[in-house]
């Protein structure tokens, strides 16, 4: 039975699903408001990217959203990794903050969003801050776990060879912790994206979320599918980028 490679099998499954989708959309009497066939969605995507569709200001809005993704992620990564190192290096601080972090992690951040808007207004800032709050915990947890798992013998060896603190950090701690930290960053990116997108859809101002809302409000269904597809692709692309980085590092 296993004569077809898994990748080919997966592609076949996806193609089957698309084919069924296409055929049933054309055949059934389901309203074109509810569902669009993949072929139409494909052309919409092409049009949107070529700005020949009726989607208003696609690239400016897309750029806003991408900036929010990047901004939120960069801060999440920097702050998360830094805090992760802090909590791992001092047992006292780590122990003290562990329950605090667990409680903060358990709070459904979504429920805080109206508060953010109230305090920070609308625009990019609350969305970025929200993305950070959603993504930072995974990064902190993974980073501190990565650092804590490092064999202390390696650090002792480095010191005994005369390595200074900085050299030990770059030559021993960082490479050893990198894979887990990268995994945390990958998950963190995913959560940050979810946070930013949720923010864009909850309080609609600008960005891809606003375009999606516009399409939804006006029942421009093919455009809606197309925009969603583009947004999902950006999210998945970012994730894949990290997967590749992770695999390259683990080597």
């Amino acid at each position, binding site marked *: 039975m296993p004569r077809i490679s898994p990748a080919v099998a*997966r592609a076949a*499954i996806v193609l089957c699903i698309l084919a069924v989708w296409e055929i049933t959309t054309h055949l059934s009497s389901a309203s074109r408001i509810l569902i669009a066939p993949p072929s139409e969605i494909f052309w919409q995507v092409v049009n949107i990217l070529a700005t020949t569709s009726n989607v208003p200001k696609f690239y400016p809005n897309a750029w806003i959203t991408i900036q929010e993704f990047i901004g939120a992620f960069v801060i999440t990564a920097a702050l998360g990794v830094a805090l992760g190192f802090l909590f791992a290096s001092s047992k006292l601080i780590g122990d003290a903050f562990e329950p605090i972090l667990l409680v903060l992690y358990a709070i459904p951040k979504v429920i805080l969003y109206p508060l953010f808007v109230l305090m920070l207004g609308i625009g990019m800032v609350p969305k970025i801050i929200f993305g950070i709050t959603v993504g930072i915990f995974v990064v902190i947890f993974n980073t501190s776990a990565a650092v804590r798992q490092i064999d202390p013998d390696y650090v002792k060896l480095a010191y005994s060879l005369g390595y200074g603190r900085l050299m030990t950090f770059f030559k021993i701690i960082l490479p050893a912790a990198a894979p887990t930290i990268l995994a945390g960053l990958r998950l963190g990116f995913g959560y940050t994206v979810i946070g930013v997108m949720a923010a864009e859809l909850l309080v609609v101002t600008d960005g891809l979320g606003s375009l999606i809302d516009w399409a*939804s409000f006006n029942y421009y269904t093919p455009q809606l599918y197309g925009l969603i597809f583009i947004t999902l692709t950006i999210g998945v692309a970012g994730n894949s980028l990290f997967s590749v980085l992770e695999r390259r590092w683990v080597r």
Partner: protein
Amino acid sequence: MGPMSAIAPRTHSWAVLAIQVAFVAAILAMWQFSVSLGWIDSLFLAAPLATARALIPTTILAEPHLAATFSAFAVALVTGVLAALVVGLLVNTSRYTYTVFMPLLVLGVIIPKVTLLPLFVLWFGIEKATIVVYGALSAFFPMVVNVSAAGQEVKPAQITLARVMGYSKIQTYRKVIIPAMLPVLTSGLFYACNAALMGVFIVELALARFGIGAFVRNLATTFRTPELYAAIILTSLITVIINMLLWSLARRLGRWRA
């Protein structure tokens, strides 16, 4: 450290406690002062005292909404988890099916499903259906990935062992397969619960008329800030308790692992 790691032995518990108390106290103090001193308009940032006073009235107001939310959450979670169990077990029928389907399922986890929300509204409307379907879908993907992974925890040698001992298929399931899968399943349940909760909240916040999300949104848009804070604290408390229960369950069931 991490949500699933064991709490480190408190060799210096007094110092730890001191830091925690100091941290919380500092936050509360900053909070109180920034409002009292007028750094931030109390319209946007309610004082801790005002919030505390609003706790009980808000809780009473929130009751019907809490009921609506948690009933939706329960249905969504059960549906998502059951579907995940079925699909996950199917995916595990062979090593081949696992290799083929797992990346697709992982893709389902990675996709920011919140982007699909307008589609769901289109199909199911602004009602309970959307909330439950979205919540179920949010719970489904993390759970199915975990169920599939859990299936890989069972070693073929253990199944052979059960055969040699004369166990029937059902007994093998009960005594070997399910215990082996339990830690990963419980961990999956933890993530599925959180995902379902988040999903339900998001939909309620965005569109619904009833439910905690809607309640919070109303408080925010009518600038009833102390009540808003109180509602957030209330919801967070309930969620944290659910998380703690699940997490301690997951830890207890995973004790035998290295």
